[in-house]
């Protein structure tokens, strides 16, 4: 009863609860956005699991490099900068001899939440030739994460919107789309999948555009900076990154992004994390104008990249 009497005095409970609530909110926000939390990979070994080891691949040698192209015995890259829909768009056309040259990497080479670095730093850490930001897996607690043949997260995205569509890159280098909520991750591991990205939506599938003018990530209806990856034919891909949110470039809708990739001949294209995350890096330089905190031109830290390299 003494406790009840104590809290019956005006403002005592209010002050104590306000402190508790403030601390709780601060913790949740820090836990969600700031505190790095390294995690371990999932051990679902398959008989044919890729090791991510590229020792059987020949080294980079006698490469011919210009400001907008790269060519060696195994990798051929050409970057075009075009103006579409009042926006500057960067299109990297990529041909590789083996899918193992299309890799993914984590910030600080560590899988986990809130472990972040800029696309350029992650690219340099991995000796990438060309890199784009990935799906920012570390910002969510769901969505399959399978990179370079290793499964890191087996929690399906069941949010029910376009985000449930995951991009699968198999060991032959062919793209396909799966619905995570309907997928047994063990089946994919057994199929020797090389990469898996969980963002979306799918822009083009089976040669048909699969977004409409009203499609958006979440509930955003704006034109935005974008990052997308697409397949044209066997071991022939494109990375597309657009500027946006600036006076020089308004950004693209998902339909506009899909149309650009369709015109380039993509049979399958998939939207990756965009907005301030959108970054394309080539041969030591950031090619686009990434925006952070609105229209400030600077690179945002992300949790992962997709890159071409050895």
């Amino acid at each position, binding site marked *: 009863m003494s406790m009840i009497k104590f809290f019956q005095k005006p403002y005592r409970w209010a002050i104590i609860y306000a402190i508790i*609530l403030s601390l709780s909110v601060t913790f949740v926000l820090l836990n969600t956005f700031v505190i790095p939390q390294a995690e371990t990979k999932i051990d679902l070994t398959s008989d044919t699991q890729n090791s991510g080891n590229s020792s059987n691949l020949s080294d980079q040698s006698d490469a011919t490099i210009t400001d907008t192209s790269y060519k060696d015995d195994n990798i051929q890259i050409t970057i075009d900068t075009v103006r579409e829909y009042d926006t500057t768009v960067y299109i990297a056309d990529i041909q590789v001899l083996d899918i193992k040259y299309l890799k993914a990497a984590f910030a600080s080479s560590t899988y986990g939440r809130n472990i972040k670095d800029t696309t350029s730093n992650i690219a340099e850490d991995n000796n990438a030739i060309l890199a784009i930001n990935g799906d920012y897996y570390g910002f*969510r607690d769901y969505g399959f994460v399978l990179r370079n043949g290793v499964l890191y997260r087996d929690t399906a995205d069941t949010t029910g919107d376009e985000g449930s569509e995951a991009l699968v890159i198999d060991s032959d280098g062919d793209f396909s789309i799966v619905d995570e909520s309907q997928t047994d991750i063990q089946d994919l591991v057994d199929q020797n999948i090389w990469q898996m990205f969980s963002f979306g939506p799918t822009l083009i599938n089976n040669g048909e555009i699969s977004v409409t003018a009203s499609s958006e990530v*979440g509930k*955003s209806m704006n034109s935005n900076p974008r990052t997308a990856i697409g397949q044209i034919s066997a071991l022939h891909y494109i990375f597309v990154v657009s500027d946006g949110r600036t006076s020089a470039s308004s950004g693209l809708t998902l339909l506009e992004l899909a149309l650009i990739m369709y015109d380039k001949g993509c049979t399958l294209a998939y939207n990756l994390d965009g907005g301030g995350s959108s970054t394309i890096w080539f041969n030591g330089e950031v090619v686009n104008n990434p925006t952070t905190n609105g229209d400030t031109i600077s690179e945002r830290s992300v949790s992962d990249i997709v890159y071409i390299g050895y």
Partner: protein
Amino acid sequence: MTLYTSDINKAATQQLNKKINSYIAFTAFCIVFDRIYALFSHGVSSASMSLMFLYPLIGGVLLFVLIKNLAPHACGAKYYRLFLNSYNSGIITLTIASALAGVFAIAGTSSPYLIYFIICGWAMIILGLFTLAVSLFQF
């Protein structure tokens, strides 16, 4: 000094008016917060944040208007302070949970801890209403 029933009702009405005005101000704050946040979210919106004002509006303004009109004598009840402490804490907790859910939805992320705010908020509201009911019966 002798306190008459009319004096008690007047004091209760003033106290409840103060509470209603506080909740009206809190409701307005929630609406303004949502609008300001929308300016910085590149057009991304969240129903959780846009509708968070309903907690103080329905749970706060409406309830205290009902108490004022139907049972103003509750203000003098033995456990009225406990009701206020628990119920107000529940409303603020649920409103903050809704705001956090909105922030996370707009950012495209989530938190496993949000559910604890919701459980805690509803538990305090139920406890508060139970205390209010007990107070009314004992008055």
